[in-house]
């Protein structure tokens, strides 16, 4: 990024000056403040807690006394989480199902919608607005819509089909019931991101994409999809992070129990409530960090690679 600016300066024909020389003391103070205030806020409220989570995961602490009452217990929390904590493996499984579902069902469907709507199509904007509608709703509202749709006695689905399935109470199906509506929202989100990506690619590529019928799939696979590589990476990152962050919907439905356990819920349950076990919750949080570090690195690496001048 720094080289970018310097190179741009040279390309303009302006000689590159030593910045330090031409900045007055006042300017330097102003620039320092511009950087340090946000750094303190983000550092203090995001990065410090991140490292604190890692440190706390090796301790035993009830959170009541001062931090000095925390006892160092090594990897004991991790050991217990993996062996005797009943919610842990179900939560890992549910998070993975969540991720797989978003990756293989909701995201491709969003891509498909975007691809179709990018054609010269009557009413394209109206379709876009409809498919995007769920995205502006909060996940909490989504939780309520889940209940209105699936409620055993009052819900839409049982009402239409005359069935009497306890969609949200039966732990073997409730995750899937929730995921259908989560996918409903996710597909719209992905559609908009892809539409943005499709608009940004070369129009001649779009001509290829505009072919109807035979050869369409081939054109998409060989021309359009590879050209969308930058946006594809954004999509992958968004999908993984969404799967790891998932919380609100299940929390609204049943506080994340009985078939709807997720790692994020376990973290929360261990810090609020009667018996707060800080070390325990932190160990689960660290496991989330480990999962999320991969997409974060991919994203960051990719954005900086692309902004390097050719």
């Amino acid at each position, binding site marked *: 990024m720094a080289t970018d600016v310097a190179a741009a300066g040279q390309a303009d024909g*302006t000689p590159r000056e030593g910045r330090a020389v031409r900045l007055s003391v006042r*300017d330097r103070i102003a620039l320092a403040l511009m950087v340090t205030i946000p750094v303190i806020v983000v550092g203090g*409220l995001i990065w410090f807690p991140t490292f604190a989570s890692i440190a706390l995961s090796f301790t035993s602490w009830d959170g009541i006394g001062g931090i000095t009452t925390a006892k160092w217990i090594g990897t004991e929390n991790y050991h217990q989480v993996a062996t005797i904590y009943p919610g842990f493996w179900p939560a890992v499984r549910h998070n993975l199902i969540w991720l797989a579902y978003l990756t293989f069902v909701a995201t491709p469907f969003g891509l498909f919608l975007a691809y179709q709507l990018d054609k010269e199509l009557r009413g394209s904007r109206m379709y876009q607005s409809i498919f995007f509608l769920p995205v502006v709703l909060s996940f909490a*509202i989504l939780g309520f819509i889940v209940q209105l749709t699936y409620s055993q006695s009052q819900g839409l689905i049982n009402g239409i089909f005359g069935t009497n399935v306890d969609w949200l109470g039966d732990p073997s199906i409730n995750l899937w019931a929730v995921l259908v509506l989560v996918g409903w929202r996710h597909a719209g989100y992905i559609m*908009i991101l892809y539409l943005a990506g499709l608009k940004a690619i070369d129009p001649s590529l779009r001509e290829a994409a505009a072919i109807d019928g035979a050869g369409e799939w081939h054109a998409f696979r060989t021309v359009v999809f590879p050209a969308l590589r930058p946006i594809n990476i954004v999509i992958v990152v968004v999908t993984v*992070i969404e799967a790891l962050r998932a919380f609100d919907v299940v929390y609204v439905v049943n506080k994340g129990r009985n078939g709807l356990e997720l790692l994020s819920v376990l973290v929360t349950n261990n810090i609020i409530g009667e018996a707060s076990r800080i070390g325990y919750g932190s160990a689960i949080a660290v496991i989330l960090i480990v999962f999320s570090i991969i997409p974060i690195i991919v994203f960051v690496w990719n*954005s900086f690679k692309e902004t390097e001048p050719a």
Partner: protein
Amino acid sequence: MTTVATTEDTRPVRKRPLSVSRIILHAFLIITALLWLAPVAWAVFTSFRPYADTAKNGYVSLPHTLTLGNYRRAWTQGDIPLHFWNSLIITIPAIVLILLFAAMVAYVVSRFSFWFNVPLLIFFMAANLLPQQVIITPVYQMFLRIHLPTWLSESGAAYDSFIGLIAINVAFQTGFCTFVLSNYMKTLPKSLTEAARVDGAGVTRQFFGIIMPLCRPAFAALAVLEFTWIYNDFFWAVVLMSSGDKQPITSSLNNLQGQFFTDNNLIAAASVLVAIPTILVFALLQRQFIGGLTLGSTKE
């Protein structure tokens, strides 16, 4: 970044006869769109029906009467005006601070070539990608221990205060806006600030007088996005706010559920009320909204 309004189609529209494949495509899209609208339409439909009617005839039935009664009850029993106000108290200052902080950092990294530009951007961007739950335990404990004067926070701590929620939202969202704004500012011609510098303007005047006004389109797009995200936030408010009367609207819905767990009609009405502002904002500013996502996800 000239892509702010690219969602407006500038391609020449060629008249195309409706082919069979087009008809199939439209049929598919219409059916999908109807399915897409169904859950929302269902919530709206339910919200207008009196509880007694649905209890007697079932939810999937023709309505005998339609009423605004559920809305009236949600409005009063759910204390909707109070919680709307709380959401505003949190959302507006948060957006202003996020945009200011992000613009300051973006200005420094896009206009100057310091050695720390790349690490700084990574520092901000990665912070926005972490799942909230990763940091919640220490944040919760910190907020309990940060004491604030009572004129700032009734609870006397950062926990259970508007200031606390504003701060965490600002910290969490600044990264995304920094990323978008730094890309945006790189596209502004260098000559603008160079000229001002020659005239003797310091960096503060260049920033507030030249760069900030030029970023208005990006600010508009980001403000819409951030409004939606912060207004829709549920997690921070549930964990960091304990007083029911200080909950923002989205998380206060959860309390309504506890009290009236069988009354889906009431919950439907409250959900519709809560969704209205984001839907309105989206409808009014759709172009900037989608343009904002374009900005955020593509590079030059």
